[in-house]
């Protein structure tokens, strides 16, 4: 089977999420990559070094600069003429592009896979991860998004993929003009990215305000070299930005250590973090559901506990 993996990148480097997708694709067959963007020679060179990669298709055009699904999907469809499976990370960009590809190929997408059981059979979470379904696809071609935390990351060195320019990117027509990219606000942070952080400290509604969130959660995270996450309640209340949200509809994380502070443990939150290796919960309510999944629990007032903990670490 020949697979095509959509490479997520920021124009400069390959995003980590891609590496787990390569591992999933390698379980299906030969791995080819698609690097679509503008001025992406460096990205293509980096992608070609990923272990196990056969070919790297490069589509360099202004139309692909912002990964707009309207422009990328037809390109993928064209390349799928000689590939059997398309795989993308289950990131916001991957989730935006892949279903459009699937519809154009008349294929039912398999979202957010956790494992490859065989060429046509996969497992995936449903009901916020409260159930795991094994599904078999009857479609001739497969379109798949991959949950990053479920697969090892492929090594970034050791490969020697052949870089090949995509012959036709539609030229002047690559930009169908259906949507126009107007701008972005991407948070700059010195802290590790949530989806690749080894340790995460997350705060919930109990933090009470943006000031308290940052005054209490940030120093602890800094002490531990951790990424910072939040519950939906904390994000909705404006204590933390939206890209901090962990959960069914936020980010799916599985760090070595997840520290949940003042988070009750609703199923939608657990959906995003319950595969963490060690879960630590700090909550004043000893019956909070978070304690049912926590390896280490401390019952008490976070406003007393956090300063003391940060100080003693």
């Amino acid at each position, binding site marked *: 089977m020949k697979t095509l993996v959509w490479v997520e990148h920021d124009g400069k480097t390959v995003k980590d999420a891609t590496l787990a997708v390569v591992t999933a694709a390698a379980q299906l067959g030969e791995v080819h990559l698609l690097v679509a963007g503008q001025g992406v020679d460096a990205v293509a060179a980096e992608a070609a070094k990923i272990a196990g990669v056969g070919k790297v298709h490069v589509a360099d055009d202004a139309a692909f600069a912002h990964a707009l699904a309207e422009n990328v999907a037809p390109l993928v469809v064209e390349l799928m003429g000689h590939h059997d499976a398309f795989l993308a990370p289950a990131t916001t*960009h991957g989730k935006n592009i892949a279903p459009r590809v699937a519809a154009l190929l008349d294929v039912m997408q398999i979202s957010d896979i956790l494992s490859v059981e065989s060429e046509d059979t996969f497992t995936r979470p449903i009901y916020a991860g409260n159930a795991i379904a094994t599904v078999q696809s009857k479609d001739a071609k497969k379109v798949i998004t991959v949950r990053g935390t479920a697969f090892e990351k492929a090594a970034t060195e050791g490969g020697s993929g052949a870089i090949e320019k995509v012959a036709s990117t539609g030229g002047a027509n690559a930009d169908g003009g259906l949507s126009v990219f107007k701008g972005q606000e991407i948070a700059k942070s010195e802290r590790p990215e949530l989806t690749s952080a080894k340790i995460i400290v997350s705060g919930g509604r109990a933090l009470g305000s943006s000031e308290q969130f940052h005054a209490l959660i940030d120093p602890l995270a800094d002490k531990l070299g951790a990424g910072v996450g939040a519950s939906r309640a904390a994000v909705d209340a404006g204590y933390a930005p939206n890209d901090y949200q962990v959960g069914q509809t936020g980010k799916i994380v599985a760090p070595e250590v997840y520290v949940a502070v003042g988070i009750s443990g609703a199923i939608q939150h657990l959906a995003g973090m319950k595969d963490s290796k060690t879960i630590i919960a700090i909550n004043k309510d000893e019956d909070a559901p978070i304690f049912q999944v926590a390896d280490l629990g401390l019952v008490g007032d976070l406003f007393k506990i956090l300063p003391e903990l940060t100080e003693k670490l």
Partner: protein
Amino acid sequence: MKVLVPVKRVLDYNVKPRVKADGTGVDLANVKMSMNPFDEIAVEEAIRLKDKGVTEIVVVSIGEQKSQETLRTALAMGADRAILIVSEEKVEPLGVAKLLKAIVDEEKPDLVILGKQAIDDDNNQTGQMLAGLLGVGQATFASKVDLTATNVTVTREVDGGSETEELSLPAVITVDLRLNEPRYASLPNIMKAKSKPMANKTPADYGVDVTPRLTTLKVVEPPKRSGGVKVADVDELVAKLKAMGVAK
């Protein structure tokens, strides 16, 4: 201007899903079902756009006969008219998108607003598929929508922050949690909704083949995590963290 909002009936988000012992799926007998929370947000947004030139909101649901309750809820919130496409078998996003395309071809809405994902199967596909089938622009995970007579500008929640895109109409939008807070239907509006029109259809009426492409071989519970130990105080927690090598 006309807006189409597809709404799905799903297990209420407050109910803990129980996997059936025979491994065929999640038990939906005698449990509370509600409108998919993202679809409530989609309906709410359509209603708010009534100040911006929207004159008619059509809601549609594909599913078992009981999905009419979900449609009535949307009508009580403020939608004008409903279409129910009855299928007692589960219809996958690809089938749903094809049915929605058939409705769009007939109704010619300027905008289709969907939820970003249905919280039962967590697919997150239908809106993107519909936009692909229609060959129109798509703005997924919307946290802000600005509508004019010819364009819609959408702020989208993405992994690192947010992005803004401008689409020409007609277009497809899928909504995220922070777009708005859906209203509750008032009692008078619930009464009024009873007399709003609801068409009853089947997939065959639209000539769409909704045969599933995926077969669910089994559904199991995820590996269980068991609660661990409680520590007495910060000192004990620090000691444990040091023992784990997390802290020095």
